[in-house]
């Protein structure tokens, strides 16, 4: 019978012994050596029955198929655009997937997206060498106009979205801003300037306190208070 050495929600460091025995299963962020299971990344231990995993708390973004990301056009090529999304790898958006409508042969591609434009796109394919294919065909995928873009660590994105979108919906509702989050950690916010600033402060607050419990309530309190202050100043 095996033995576990860490508790659920413990912070574990690389090389830390998590469990012993073949009846435990190493999942992401862990590895097995002989009978023992060790953590191989800094993060929060996650015990689910006999499955052990570590949820990372930091690190650079690595593209994943299916992720919706916010990126910037950095180059226009013969038959597509090169898109940077603040990762070690950039993506290619081909003309075929560029828009929902038809783009004729030989068209001036800068008419659709020019260098410096920001787009919300989806990753459809990644090769072993991390060449990334993107698409603009899909709900919510579009070119971004106006607003502000900020960057947060991609590991904090699930917390900004919240369970079933609870956090992000609350932020949108209370501030009246449009907010879009890319899995790569880019957040686009558009609304009245004061409200935009409030959303930025809120997101920075979430980023800082991403690991702690009772976050949604605290953020709600913070936003309601700030909005009240904002409204009394305007009067």
């Amino acid at each position, binding site marked *: 019978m095996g033995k576990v050495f860490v508790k659920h*929600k413990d*912070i574990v*460091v*690389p*090389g*830390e012994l998590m469990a012993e025995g073949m009846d435990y299963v190493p999942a992401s962020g862990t*590895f097995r050596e002989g009978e023992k299971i*060790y953590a*191989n*990344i*800094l*993060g*929060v231990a*996650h015990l689910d029955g006999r499955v052990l995993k570590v*949820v*990372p*708390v*930091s*690190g*650079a973004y*690595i593209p994943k198929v299916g992720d919706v990301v916010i990126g910037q056009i950095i180059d226009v090529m013969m038959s597509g655009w090169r898109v940077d999304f603040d990762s*070690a*790898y*950039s993506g290619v958006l081909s003309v075929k997937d560029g828009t929902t409508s038809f783009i004729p042969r030989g068209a001036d591609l800068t008419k659709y997206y020019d260098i410096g434009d920001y787009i919300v796109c989806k990753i459809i394919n990644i090769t*072993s*060498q*991390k060449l990334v294919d993107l698409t603009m065909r899909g709900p919510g995928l579009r070119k971004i106009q106006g607003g502000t873009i900020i960057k947060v660590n991609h*590991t904090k994105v*699930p*917390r900004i*979205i*919240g*369970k*079933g979108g609870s956090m992000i919906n609350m932020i949108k509702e209370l501030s009246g801003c449009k907010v879009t989050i890319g899995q790569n950690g880019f957040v686009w916010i558009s609304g009245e300037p004061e409200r935009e600033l409030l959303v930025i402060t809120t997101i920075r607050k979430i980023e800082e*306190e*991403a*690991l*702690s*419990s*009772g*976050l949604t309530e605290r953020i709600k309190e913070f936003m309601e208070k700030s909005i009240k202050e904002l409204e009394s100043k305007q009067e």
Partner: protein
Amino acid sequence: MKYDITYDKRVDGRKFDELRPIEAKVGVIPNADGSAFFKDGNTWAYAAVYGPRRLYPRSMQNPTEGILRCRYNMMPFSGMGDRVRPGPSRRAKEISMVTEKALAPVLDLNEFPNSVVDVFIELAQTDAGTRCAGINAAALALADAGLKMKDIPAAIAVGKVNNQYVVDLCYPEEAYEGIVVDMPVAMLPRTKDITLLQMDGQFELEDLKKLLEIVKKPIDRIHKIQVEALKNKFKNVKIADEVEE
């Protein structure tokens, strides 16, 4: 200068197997992906990690896995006497290289072809043992950067001053007028695999065997401090039930 070392008393009054006061802190450089500060007595090392990020020039890219690139540097004011000339010297290049080789075995960069992980090590103040302090800081910074690692390497110098085995030599000891051997060692604390072993001086095979035994205890001690430093970053956080959806 005259230092009062005899066989039975160290310059700073430490026991022979005693380390200098050690402090470690993680996350000291907010702009970096991972960073750490490691202080061993009067030797202060900062390490910042960036990446994995795109690697240029392209000729350096490795399509099978990401590469690790270290830069060891002593700040101009860090020495005990003259200004240290900025830029990589022959010595700094060598130490950068051995640091890379000391850290690479624990890192798993298979997921990041054609990319680089940059490690910058800056010494703000030096009193011998800089490469060890640098490796200790860099190991912490790499872990802080969320990279996959099998272990956290720890490093310390051991040596022999006038027939006396000592641990963690300071500069006056290294420069002592007598027979001095200085041997920096980096180890993986769990498996006790050696990833760095250099030696300055001359001694017998027996001494080497003995010193490699002696070094294990301080390595474990440093590893403990490193683990503590990483965990301290989250000390005041009450972790939520679901940090991931």
